[in-house]
């Protein structure tokens, strides 16, 4: 899907589509690594954000699932628990995404789209 403003973004990763709606999703990344990170989140810290996680399990994310706009997971497949539950809730989610580990994503603007059946993750170019 091509959209106005796409040239402002550079592709940084591709993965399998666990769930995706009809339109590309944009939002600010909130990266969480540990259960302590999740428990420490204050109300509103994840609201409307795109969650970036490394684990494809779901139990640690349950309190924040209703708040988030989308999820990017660097592991997992379409049968992972995170994929199953995001499909059930209708939360856009791309799994098994290979991202450049040298880039810091937290706080950056990201776009998620589907092309040729794959989930594409793009990062907004920095000024």
């Amino acid at each position, binding site marked *: 899907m091509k959209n106005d403003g796409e040239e402002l973004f550079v592709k940084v990763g591709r993965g399998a589509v666990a*769930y995706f709606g009809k339109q590309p999703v944009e939002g600010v990344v909130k990266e*969480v690594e*540990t*259960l302590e990170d*999740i*428990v420490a989140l204050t109300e509103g810290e994840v609201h409307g954000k795109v969650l970036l*996680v490394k*684990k*494809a*399990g*779901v*139990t*640690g*994310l*349950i*309190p924040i*699932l209703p708040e988030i706009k989308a999820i990017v997971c660097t*592991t*997992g*497949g*379409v*049968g*992972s*628990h*995170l994929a*199953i*539950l995001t*499909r*059930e*809730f*209708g939360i856009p989610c791309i799994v*098994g995404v290979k991202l450049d580990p040298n880039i810091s994503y937290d706080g950056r603007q990201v776009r998620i789209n589907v092309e040729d059946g794959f989930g594409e993750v793009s990062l907004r170019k920095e000024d």
Partner: protein
Amino acid sequence: MSRTLSTDEVNRLLIAFSDAAKQLIGRRTLLESHMFPVTTYVATGLYNLHEIGYEALREVTESASPEEIGRLGRRFLSRINQKTHFSIILGYLVGREQRLMDEDEYSTLGEDDAEQTRFMLNFFHKAVSNYRSDGKLFVADGNGSIPILPEEALEGLNGSMFSIDEEARVSLRRTMALLQAYLFLSNCESRGNVFSHGPYGKNNLIIREFTSLKSGPLADYLEISPPVKNLAVVLELGGMKPALDEVGTLYVDPPDYMDHVENIGLFTTSGSKIEPLPPSISSDVSQFAQRAQKALFYQAAKLDDRQKIVAGALQYSNLFPYYEAVGEPDAFTPHLGKRCQEIDLPKMISLRIHPFFNKFGEKPNLFTPLENKER
């Protein structure tokens, strides 16, 4: 088939299990969770299943034959379906393979391995042959279907299905999502008590079952009770395309299938009878699931690493559904066997990931065949 499987048949079944496992794990992957050390507790649980599984199923089959046990699963909300025959026997085989791979003084399986492995696969063959309506053993053989209900059970649904509007679809979708989230927590991130089967008939019915709304290793921490003990959601999918995997996970094309469902049924059981539920139950279940999730999340977060591994291992080696199904619920309590407690659990707390889980990308056959002494 009343005879015991030959060695060749056992070995062919081992290959079939290997293929099915690879397909399942290919989609699921070896996932980890922020809350539970999943791969660690899976390995521990499957060591345990190998230790206690043979004796347990021997005991169960003293009350009912494998064929009868297969037939006991051919009903709505059967508790046997909270685990699936496939996952139990696969778990046993993985536990066996883990032992074979261990490079320590415990790596030998002993002389009983052949007899016990044959027994477990024989059980699977006889039970599942009398469970699926099509006589197939694996979901992949049945084109992604799990047909287990007889015609008369499906006919009993007529008159209890009802049409729903968009608001009700949105609400029901959310209820099923909240329930699954809660059940993932209650079952320590494992997929317990959620099972779908079908499709059935010209209307392409899929039945989504939540076989127990208060079950799993963390259920004892829950002080509230669900409005019903179990819930079956019957969905008419019409022209949409459902597909199931070996453990009853539902995939539908299109994924937003709930936007298009027009007729549904909601049911619970009372004894062996199935009872229709009113549409308002969706809201009641949704509220329960939200409260339960919150309570269990903070409870789970307080558990230490060892407690989480033990809880998950107990879930993976829980054979209670079989005992309950044959009328012997008091004969089994989830437990870790002696060897698991003394050797496997401490080992896995240290090792974290068993080398078996690296085999998925290496060997064509995951499971070591039996030596054929019949030739």
